[in-house]
């Protein structure tokens, strides 16, 4: 996870992620070719589907909104060297929080109060679902990875139980709440654009995208410009040193996980308040896991995360187009690409580093011997 010392920074943040994506696309392309389709045709279909067709850019940005939230969630935890793979469950519970306050108050509160309240509730529920594994890690020594995995399943069980039970809209079969009133809705971007006279195609893109970008700024300030961020990064670099410097490591771990969970929970703003306008079963559909790929590619930096989210947004939207254009390949292709990107940028992170470092070394300072050590694990 940490940057190896022997690569210049611009190469680590710019070149390596690019190589990772290219490698992932290359392998996926080979799979497409084996299946018997032309990988370049598939690529063109995805690009058109993601950017060219009417309204497609809106869809791409709508998916990207989800990934910004879950990517930021993973990144914040990464800075404290915590691996939060519970984004899926935290986002799911965020939807529960938003759903509960909307069901309770949407008929009596105006949008100006209702929407912020629902946002707070989704962040709050996500934060609790992140803070408990944080507490268990900090105080009880249970491994955050395992606990967050279990919490994903527990969240899924809770949601099935509630949505098929007490939260289910009366007189209806499908496991979902009733639709919220207008005051709990975030406006669509195309509605806003049309109201000020701009032509814009319909898409699920809504105001959450702006909130997501604000969250990016917030995370940047938090991590690099605040006292807490300093404590988080110090804990991540060396818990022992942090402890020695008087940083309350346990508390930092719990708070970091709460922030991380809260950000994941805010994914529900986009899905629940922005698009569905009711809490439904399985609305997270794996976006929490995509957040891991996004954070890895984005090098845990908000700008990188926005760029990676755009890439994954385009992949998801373009992937949906594959279903229509081909009979043999479909959107699950995107899952493969996503897995490969995680593999290349995470598991096989050091595969490109050393050859690239040597290549760059030869190019930048010829004749000098490049040390081959330095692949210390983070």
């Amino acid at each position, binding site marked *: 996870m940490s940057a190896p010392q022997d690569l210049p920074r611009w190469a680590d943040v710019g070149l390596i992620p690019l190589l990772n994506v290219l490698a992932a696309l290359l392998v996926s392309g080979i799979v497409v070719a084996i299946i018997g389709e032309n990988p370049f045709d598939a690529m063109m279909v995805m690009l058109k589907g993601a950017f060219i067709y009417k309204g497609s850019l809106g869809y791409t940005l709508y998916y990207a909104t989800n990934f910004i939230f879950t990517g930021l969630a993973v990144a914040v935890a990464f800075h404290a060297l915590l691996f939060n793979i519970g984004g899926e469950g935290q986002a799911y519970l965020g939807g529960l929080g938003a759903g509960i306050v909307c069901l309770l108050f949407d008929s009596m509160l105006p949008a100006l109060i209702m929407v912020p309240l629902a946002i707070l509730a989704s962040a709050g529920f996500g934060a609790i679902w992140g803070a408990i594994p944080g507490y268990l890690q900090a105080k009880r020594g249970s491994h955050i990875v395992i606990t967050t995995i279990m919490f994903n399943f527990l969240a899924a069980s809770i949601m099935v139980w509630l949505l098929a039970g007490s939260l289910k809209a009366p007189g209806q079969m499908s496991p979902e709440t009733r639709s919220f009133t207008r005051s709990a809705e975030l406006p669509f971007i195309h509605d806003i654009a049309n109201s000020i006279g701009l032509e814009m195609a319909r898409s699920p893109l809504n105001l959450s995208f702006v909130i997501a970008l604000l969250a990016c700024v917030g995370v940047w300030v938090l991590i690099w410009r605040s006292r807490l961020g300093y404590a988080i990064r110090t804990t991540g670099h060396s818990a022992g040193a942090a402890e020695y410097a008087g940083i309350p490591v346990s508390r930092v771990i719990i708070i970091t996980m709460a922030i991380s969970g809260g950000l994941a929970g805010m994914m529900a703003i986009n899905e629940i308040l922005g698009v569905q306008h009711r809490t439904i079963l399985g609305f997270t559909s794996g976006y929490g896991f995509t957040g891991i790929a996004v954070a890895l590619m984005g090098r845990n930096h908000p700008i990188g995360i926005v760029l990676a989210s755009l890439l994954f947004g385009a992949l998801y939207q373009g992937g949906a187009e594959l279903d229509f254009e081909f009979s043999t390949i479909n959107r*699950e292709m995107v899952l493969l690409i996503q897995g490969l990107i995680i593999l290349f940028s995470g598991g096989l992170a050091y595969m490109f580093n050393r050859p690239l470092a040597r290549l760059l070394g030869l190019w930048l300072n010829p004749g000098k011997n490049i040390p081959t050590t330095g692949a210390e694990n983070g």
Partner: protein
Amino acid sequence: MDDLWLQFLLTIDATFRLATPLVLCAMAGIFSEKSGIIDISLEGKMLMSAFAAAAVAALTSSAMAGLWAAIGISVALGLLHGLASITLRGNQVISGLAINIMASGLTVTIGIAMFQKGGQTPSLARYERFRPIELPFADQLGQIPFLGPIYREVISGHNILVWVALIAVLFTAFILARTRFGLRLRAVGEKPEALDSAGISVVKTRFLALIIAGVLCGIAGAYLSTAHGSGFVREMTAGKGYIALAAMIFGKWQPRGALYACLLFGFLEALASRLQGIEIPFIGAAPVDLILALPYLLTVILLAGFVGRAVPPRAIGQPYIKER
């Protein structure tokens, strides 16, 4: 009364069938994790091998060929995990996660391309699957009141892979506790530098552990699609790999403990499906969701040390670097 007894026995019978993939995967997990490699890719390996088994069995009409394909693909994924986490010293959790996500995508992608059935494989005929083995005199002995049905319902009528799972537990326990390789395996997960200074290759030992884990996961996958089920359906592992991981932790990384945990989790699953839609006196509708969530809840509680203590191998998750 007799009927209740039979119902109970049928639940126990279902417990064995549901616990089998968990047991195989949990033993796989013990091999990897005892050697110091975190293995959350149990799920993905099992999913890929379930697909491979069903696909090859459908094409060749041989369950055995399917089993070999399943083992092959699962070992290959294990080697990929090893390449990432042993050779390249990458992050083991991320590598495992990547394998799981790739498996989700690949199985459906290849499945649609091969069979055009929305990601499923064709339904397998009886002779293309591992069939139940009726033990001798099952019908006659089954007539004996009370005890007879135990033999007929619970012990007889399992397919060969159920028995393989049972043998896998004995095999794992024997290898770990009684062989030189087992000693090395445990050492490499606790203090790899000790093994290294004794002149034994850390890399080789860990790779061997991952290969054995791959074989076991492959059998588990083949069981799901060609013994328990009759064909592959998308996402058919449905988190079983993670439950096996939980069972392994619940069993404190010990074969026997993990076996009991798998049986417990299998029993909960069997109970839940039996209680589906049944009204229990004083409680109302059976809390099926709660029963199904219990494995996860119990594991969290155990890991947090509220009941007993589960301590992982000390060197787990750390890539071995010689100079350190």
